């Protein structure tokens, strides 16, 4: 899967979870950029991303992600 393909899918996931069709994410996107992205919503995002790509993150990975770019790095490794 190319990074572009991952982003195309990831945008859909973000749009669903935050119910906002205008959201697009990039390497630098963080929780600060999306209004509803708080710690409680984070879990839903993780579950949705895992489900969309058929991957499982471990605790270290979830805790260590600084931005969406790092999430995409991990997804790219796994798929």
């Amino acid at each position: 899967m190319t990074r572009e393909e991952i982003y195309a899918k990831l945008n859909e996931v973000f749009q669903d979870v935050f119910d906002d069709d205008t959201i697009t994410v990039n390497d630098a996107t963080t929780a600060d950029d999306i209004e509803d992205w708080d710690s409680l919503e984070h879990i839903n995002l993780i579950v949705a991303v895992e489900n969309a790509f058929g991957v499982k993150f471990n605790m270290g990975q979830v805790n260590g992600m600084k931005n969406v770019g790092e999430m995409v790095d991990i997804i790219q490794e796994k798929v």
Partner: protein
Amino acid sequence: MKELEYPFDAEQILQKKKKLRRQLLESGAQFTDKRIAILGGSTTNDIKLILELFLLDYGIRPIFYESEYNQWYQDAMFENTELETFAPDIIYIHTTNRNITTYPCLSDDAKTVDDMIAGEMEKFQSVWKHLAETYHCPVIQNNFEMPYYRLLGNRDASDIHGAVNFLTRLNMEFYVYAQTHENFYICDINYISADYGLKKWADPFYYHMYKYALSVPAIPYLALNVANIIKSLFGKNKKGFVLDLDNTLWGGVIGDDGPENIVLGPEESEGQAYLEFQRYIRRHKELGIILCVDSKNEEENALLGLKHSDGALRPEDFVMITANWEPKDRNFREIADSLGLLPESLVFVDDNPAERHIVTEQIKGVRAPEIRTVHEYIGVIDRSGFFETTVLSKDDLKRNEMYKENVERKKLQESFADYHEYLLSLEMKAVIKGFEPVYMARIAQLTNKSNQFNLTTKRYTQAEIESVAEDDRYITLYGKLLDRFGDNGVVSVVIGRVEGEICHVDLWIMSCRVLKRDMEFAMMDALIKKCMERGVKKIRGYYYPTAKNAMVREFYALQGFTKVSEDEAGNTEWVFTIPRKYANKTDVIKVEG
């Protein structure tokens, strides 16, 4: 909503929950508002959000109180003005085995373990008692799911030191409490987690990361179960099955294959699966679930199939058997009409997706589960929770009989040219009296269940009914109707609030199974009698329209009231001046009061 019907895609529900919520709220459905307090022993945020979806889908719009993380005990036991002001209609205690304070050590003796059980029970019981006394509302309590690991392996189940044994004992204690206390209901997460798969349910990732005591993808399964208990308590259970025959109750097409060639019975695998399904359906009769047939068949063939010697269901198990070549949705409506039920209170069971489609498209609110193949029928229907049983009343157990009697009455009616003669022939007797303790539960149930013959759609809890009964300002009446075919039980309830010389009718409801029997006139006669005894001069009636109660729009006009006002929403007010000499409105019911 399709997305929320079992079997659902749990991940999609979680991912799209905001959109689903929006769609449900914008659907134009009429909602009943209910205040629900969630007292959690772990994170409950998504449980709340997903529970909201299932409740909205049941027509209940929840307003939530949610305790702070793991504050269930403090919120329940200590002074809590916020919760008191909130005044919950339902309290859900979401505790799990993560909330057990201490588990037995291997060195503990039996007495110590017993004391530990007693200690946990004391903690929980004090919470339940305190909540019941403070909030007088139903409490839903999780039991305990089995532990994620077993230190003693299989011995964990039988050894008093095993966590499996310990939790099982606690669960049994919870059940004893549930059996001996009203308004207390167990949410069986032990079963739900087993059904989901304990290994996945208890995945510790979600606890360590977010303090969820169950895995997030399992939440919709928990939420569905909690929603089912809640909708059942608010009278929103389904009431019956409308079943197809060919390839639903047996394999094959009886009209083509002949009764000797349909697949049913223990001789081979598929026939066995159909037989098991027939047994499953038949057992619903014990719960008072009505069984009907809606099949494209010659009636003669339908009956031959139902008389099949290897089948579990018999023609007499059904209240109505409709077998013809009319469109199924039309038959479905007719069945509901003749039973005096709303079509959406019946579940349509048909193997054919096209038939399910036409029925659900044509009749709003009807559920037609995607039952897949015969060995899956039971699993899908059972987990949908259409008939979630929170309270088993004697009336429920008799319901099938009562509807059958109704069909008999209809036959009798057809033999009379004059309706009044027919009513007299029924030899009706009514008991109409002020609320009595034995009927409080039934009265409260009726106020929550009646939608059609309901003038104000005011809902009462049992506690409210009891307090109205004791209050001198109120005139309360319940009506029980018997006739030559049987006892219909308590079928009508009236609550009047007396202010000076005026009696305001706060509530007037009647079960639709006694429509057109003059029972509403007998109730009015009784109300007027009570009013006259108390020196009341005028009765004021109120009609508040809902999506379901159009049948009583002109009720007060029929009773001889005069309309005094009507607003834009169609709410009307009526008045009746009691004459000095009042002649009873009906002579077809002998009333004992």
